Structures are given as structure tokens and as C-alpha cells.
């Protein structure tokens, strides 16, 4: 009998499949699959006030990957709590809300408002490459990462997961810093900063010039970083970056992740989260794994 349960910072997920922030919309994704199948739904980044995001084009396809420069368009935390959260309440899955901001105060304002909601966890995005201030600047420096983690830890009544950027020299330094500052978990990796030029038009494809690279093209980088961070910290890790199949999920678990997020795969195949979960179960059946712990320890 296969057991897919996993405990992330005191929250019991019924399986390790979560949705990567920014690639999941309850109403739109829910038209393609049953959200109850997810271990957790991680929602799109939400800020203290509504953000318009970047002008278009925001999307560019690359070989085996894609660039995005959405710029964290979102309706703001009040609209989110009033109009989007109630819909999510009906599902038998954990709800993790991704939080963004330009200053520590902005992050804290959102976290405070979420304290009084039913959500299970907060994922703090300190790694978005597409906004000028805040975002990535918190995640690219140990001191800054530590400071924001401490502040949010102080006011949050929910477990906090810090989402890290791969655009750093040593990911383990940042991971250790957020762990020491009180993070309950870590998500990695966010997108890699990239760029595409239209050689006929002689200009960048994205309005924002640069954007975040995701998809299978970045999977080896993500697996490597999960592997390194697993050996540097003891808090739970949600691994992501190009998970397209059940075997990809297994790869992240073997590298040391406790759960995985499905992002770009859901754009390529809207039903990807449930398909990947099914493939993970098939892999476990075929290879004699009864629980996720056995996969995580397989390489030790």
C-alpha cells in the first residue's frame, strides 16, 4: 500500500504534488482537473495593493523552456481574500499563499492580513526576477534574506516557506541564512534570469527585455540546487524547476526535496499535476517504494 503523505513544517500534505506559484488559477486550472487531487495549491503571488504587472509581450518560448516577465500582476491582498480565497475553501487540499512585496513592510502587511484566514502556509517570494525593487534583491543576499525572514517569522501565525532564487553564487549560503532566521521551509528554484532576441526585428522579444526561464531546460540546475541545499539545511524543501513527469518528481525527491511544485508543465499540459501524481504512484509501484521517505533515502 503506497503512502504519499508528507509533513511540511507541521502541515500534513496528502501527497507531494503542489502547483508552482503563478501557474495555477483555481477556476481556470480547476476546469481541467480535480483540485482535490493536489497535495497543496500554491496560489499566485499576492501583494499589499493591486499590481498591474508588465506590458506585453510577457511570454517567449525558448528551446525546451520559456521566458516569462509577467511582473506579478495580482488583484492585491484584500481582493484576494474577499474574492478568491472563498472559492478555494471548498477543496480538500492545503492552501499555500505566495506573498510578494517591494519592501519588508509591504510583505508584512500581506502576511498580517493572511494571519486571520484559513490558509495553511505562506510562501514568501524573495526571488522574482521581473520586478525592479524588492523580489529578487531580498533573495540574492544572505543579510537581506535573513532580515526579511526574521520580520515575517515574527508576525506570521502560519508556517513560512522562503522561495529562493537560483540567480546567486552560492545557494546554500542563502538557504542557511533563512533557516537560521526562522524559516519553516524552503522552495527552490524560482526562474533563471534569461533573455531572447528577435533577430529579424532586432529587439528583445519581451517588453521587459529580460525574464525568468523555466521548464525542462532548467531542471538539472534545480536538481543540483535542491541536492546542495538538502545537505546544508534540515528544514523541508519544496523542489521545483522543470518537473514534467513522475520520474522528474522522483528525481527531485531523491535529490532531497520533500515535495515538488508543477509549474511550466501545467502550461504545456493543463492536467500535468494529476498526471504527474499518477506517474509517481506508478513509479513507486513498479520499483517497490511504499512511501516518500524511501525515495528520499534511496541515494544515501
Amino acid at each position, binding site marked *: 500500500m503506497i503512502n504519499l503523505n508528507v509533513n511540511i513544517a507541521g502541515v500534513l500534505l496528502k501527497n507531494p504534488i503542489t502547483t508552482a506559484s*503563478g*501557474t*495555477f*488559477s483555481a*477556476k*481556470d*486550472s480547476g*476546469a*481541467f482537473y480535480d483540485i482535490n487531487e493536489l497535495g497543496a495549491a500554491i496560489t*499566485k503571488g499576492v501583494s499589499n495593493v493591486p499590481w*498591474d*504587472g508588465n*506590458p*506585453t*509581450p*510577457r*511570454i*517567449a*518560448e525558448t*528551446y*525546451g*523552456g*520559456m521566458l*516569462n516577465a*509577467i511582473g506579478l*500582476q495580482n488583484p492585491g491582498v484584500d481582493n484576494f481574500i474577499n474574492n478568491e480565497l472563498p472559492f478555494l475553501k471548498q477543496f480538500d487540499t492545503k492552501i499555500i499563499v505566495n506573498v510578494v512585496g517591494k519592501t519588508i513592510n509591504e510583505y508584512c502587511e500581506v502576511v498580517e492580513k493572511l494571519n486571520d484566514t484559513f490558509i495553511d502556509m505562506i510562501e514568501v517570494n524573495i526571488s522574482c526576477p521581473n520586478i525592479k525593487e524588492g523580489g529578487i534583491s531580498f533573495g540574492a543576499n544572505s543579510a537581506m534574506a535573513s532580515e526579511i525572514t526574521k520580520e515575517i517569522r515574527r508576525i506570521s501565525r502560519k508556517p513560512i516557506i522562503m522561495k529562493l532564487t537560483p540567480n546567486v553564487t552560492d545557494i546554500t549560503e542563502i538557504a542557511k541564512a533563512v533557516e537560521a532566521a526562522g524559516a519553516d521551509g524552503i522552495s527552490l528554484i524560482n526562474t533563471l534570469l534569461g533573455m531572447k532576441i528577435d533577430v529579424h526585428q532586432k529587439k528583445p522579444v519581451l517588453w521587459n527585455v529580460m525574464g525568468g526561464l523555466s*521548464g*525542462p531546460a532548467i531542471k538539472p540546475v534545480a536538481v543540483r540546487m535542491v541536492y546542495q541545499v538538502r545537505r546544508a539545511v534540515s528544514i523541508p524543501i519544496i523542489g521545483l524547476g522543470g518537473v514534467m513527469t513522475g520520474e522528474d518528481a522522483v528525481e527531485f525527491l531523491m535529490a532531497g526535496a520533500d515535495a515538488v511544485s508543477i509549474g*511550466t508543465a*501545467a*502550461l*504545456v*499540459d*493543463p*492536467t500535468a499535476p494529476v498526471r504527474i501524481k499518477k506517474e509517481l504512484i506508478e513509479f513507486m509501484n513498479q520499483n517497490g517504494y511504499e512511501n516518500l521517505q524511501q525515495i528520499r533515502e534511496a541515494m544515501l
Partner: protein
Amino acid sequence: MKKEVFKAEIAENKPIADKIYQMVIKAPQITDNYWPGQFINVYLDDKSMLLPRPVSISSVSEDTVTLIYKVVGKGTEEMASKGPGELVRLSTNLGNGFRLEDVFNEIKGTSSVVALVGGGMGIAPLVGLARLLAKEKKVRGLNDEDLKIVAFVGFQDEPVLLETLEDSCNRVYFSTESGAKGFKGNVIQLIKKTGIKVDYYIACGPKPMLKTLAQICKNTSIPLQVSLEERMGCGYGACVGCVSKTKEKETSKFKMKKVCADGPVFFGSEVVWDD
């Protein structure tokens, strides 16, 4: 509504002009719920190309759906390489189509003219729209004196689908930019030249064309619906990659709406064209 991605059999896939193809697919899942102006995602076999290609539904018959597409890159090249009997992966219907109720509310049905305006591949969804308009006209007991459906369509060099459109329109006017056939010029120049008094415009085509038409409609208080095109990621509302700035009618507040899930059809008056 429940949506899905599925494999369907191609019944026909042939060029109808230079680089322009017509693909007919057996897909009752799509025809059952079709409304003109909707699109579908075509998912490619070559896994190096991750993102689906959103293609507007041109028309449907009993159990087949017709796509008209232009080969512009590797993704559409792959689509063009497929033959009858081969399978193609598709999504079910995406997006919201043209709002017919609004058309009939506005025109009141007395010597009215509804004009369909298409630029380039923008002609594709107008075929299904023209058919539904013609059908609705009959259902509502309107004759040609009450309501005329005309089309203005513009092309680079070579017109396509003119006869198909003529089947459901009272008159089809066309132009080519090169002057190779028909009136020489773009579709806006064509509209001006014919000088027909129009009571309602419905348009699909390049943004500059839609923007100019929206300006004309604003100045003359003629209602307009447009189908917008934007580079998409998922095509179903999850990634927020394709947006258009719009103004809420009631509150005058600005909003970044998703072209795929909130559109692709918008009222010309709600789109903020200058940004």
C-alpha cells in the same frame, strides 16, 4: 465548464494560399460547445516547443472543426506537415466568443447594416460568425431589408475564404495591400472608400487596424466588438501572460484583463488602445 486536452483525427490539411492552411479535424468535443470567436490550443509533438499554439476556430460542421492558420514558424510548420488520418492534440474550446445579443439589441432590426471586418488571418473566425449571424437573422424573422450582413476583408497579396464568407453575407468587399487583387490598400481604406453606413462593427485582425477602427467607431458612436490577439502562455487563464488594459464601463477603473480567459472578444470601447 469542464475542459480537456485530447487527441483528434485530422480529416484534411491543405494549403489554400501561400503559407495559409486549412485543417479540418474530427472533434465533436469542440463542435458541441462552439461559439464563434472562441479558439483552441494546438499542442505540438516536438517537445522542444513547450507552449501550445492558440488558433481561432474558423467554423464547425456537425462533428468537424475547421482551423485556418498561417505558417509563421516551427510550430505551425509542424501543424502543416500533418496529413489526413494523423492525430493532433487539442484543447476543448477556450475563450469567450462574439456577443450576438448585444448586436441585435443595438441594431433594432430596421434597415441595419452589421459589418464584419477582417485583416489577414483575422478573417478566420468571421466565417463561423457570419454563419451564426445569418442563422439568427432568419430565426428572428429579419429579411435583407431589415438587416444586411457585409464583410470588409483585407490581405497582403492573396485573398482567401471570400466565397465561404459570401455564402452567409449580403456582400463581401476585399482589398490587398499590394494591389495584386481587388482594391489596393488596407481594410480601413476599403471601408472608407465603399462609404456604406454601418450600424455595428465586429472586427478581428492586427492591433493597428483594430485601434484605427476603434477610433472611427468612437468618433461616430458606432458599437464595435474586437477579437484581440496577444502572445499567450497557457491559453486558459493560469499564467496571466496575455493581457489587455481595459476600462470598466461602470466604474471607469482600469483593469488588466486576460485575453485568453476574459476575451479574446472585447468591446472596442472598453479596450485602452494607447498603452
